[in-house]
């Protein structure tokens, strides 16, 4: 009898303990990289990011992925060159992973540690501040990741023998839906 109760208990409780408490889904996103060159200031924009957050025991694990080729600078030649120097065909996704306390969702600003995989390399960015705004059931976050080309061993492209700056900040705007 005890064995049966134990089996029934395990069947009921295991999926509960193993399952997520809540989920976050990326509803909308705008990621903008900024490239500086003595003759150009260029921006490339992507709305192609996909993301999901899984919360468990007060901690939320987030994964965001964006195809490298989804960035549009308004110049197809530049976009193809960007795809080449970042090895975007070989490594087609930029992925960002982070863990945030569930309670942070109600803060005005959160500082998060990011693990970014890009161009076959992994870089970590610590305590990146993001502004948080809650509108109804959706949470809007905005911030800038101070990406450097050297973090990912990308050789800075050059035009007229002048290379672009190593700093390529990526501004992030995201709207998340909590479920």
């Amino acid at each position: 009898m005890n064995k049966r109760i134990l089996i029934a208990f395990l069947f009921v409780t295991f999926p509960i303990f193993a399952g997520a408490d809540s989920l976050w889904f990326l509803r909308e996103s705008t990621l903008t990289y900024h490239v500086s060159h003595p003759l150009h200031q260029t921006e490339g924009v992507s709305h192609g990011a996909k993301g999901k957050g899984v919360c468990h025991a007060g901690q939320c694990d987030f994964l965001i992925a964006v195809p490298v080729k989804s960035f549009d600078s308004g110049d197809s030649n530049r976009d193809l060159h960007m795809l080449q120097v970042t090895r975007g065909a070989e490594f087609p996704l930029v992925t960002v992973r982070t863990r945030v306390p569930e309670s942070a969702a109600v803060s005005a600003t959160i500082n998060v540690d990011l693990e970014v995989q890009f161009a076959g390399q992994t870089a970590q960015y610590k305590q990146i501040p993001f502004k948080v705004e809650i509108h109804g059931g959706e949470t809007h976050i905005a911030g800038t990741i101070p990406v450097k080309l050297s973090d990912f061993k990308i050789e800075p492209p050059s035009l007229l023998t002048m290379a672009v700056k190593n700093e390529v900040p990526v501004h992030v705007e995201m709207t998340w839906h909590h479920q």
Partner: protein
Amino acid sequence: MLSLIFPVCLCVGFAPALIAQIPAPGTSSSMVTGTPGSGQQDSLPNAPSSSTNPPSLTDLGLTPEQTQGNAKEQALLDKRTHMLKIHQRMGLITTVPLIATVIASMGAGGKDTSTASRDLHAALGGVTGDLYFITAYYAIRAPRVPGTETRGPIRFHKAMAWIHGPGMILTPILGIMAFDQKSKGEKVHGIASAHGPVAIITAGAFGAAVLSVSVKF
């Protein structure tokens, strides 16, 4: 009985966690983990761990086609960039004899011109033409990336080629005709008299093509 069911429960409950630990497609074991700024490799205090069920790429609805790298496409992009870099470099080099040819043209025409100044102009024009066609070769032969729509300043850059391309063929032909007429002591006449205007239009289109991809308007 319990020993049989327990592993089943574990598999059901933690299967996503096991799946999440499988390296994501498009990544490789040669990836380097670095900390920007410090250059040290240390674990983050709130970095994701595999103790819960962190989301994976498949959770995002990405297909294997979207996540897997394509070495063939990368090789195509590498070849394209390599050829266009040469195109860019050769184009810049070509502007030097092109400008010199235009300057030398001022002493090549008119009534009181010497044979030497005409020869210099013709020689510079010849060098310009050779370099121009080498430049054009690298642009024409650079591989196209399928499914790419041409957008931005590169459209103007390519459109200019329809002017300076024929111009670079026509200008030396007209120049040779003008040179012959001048060498015979004749006044440049007929279609050869178009050498100057055609050359100016060609040089202007070439300059506009260079500027269109160099300076943001």
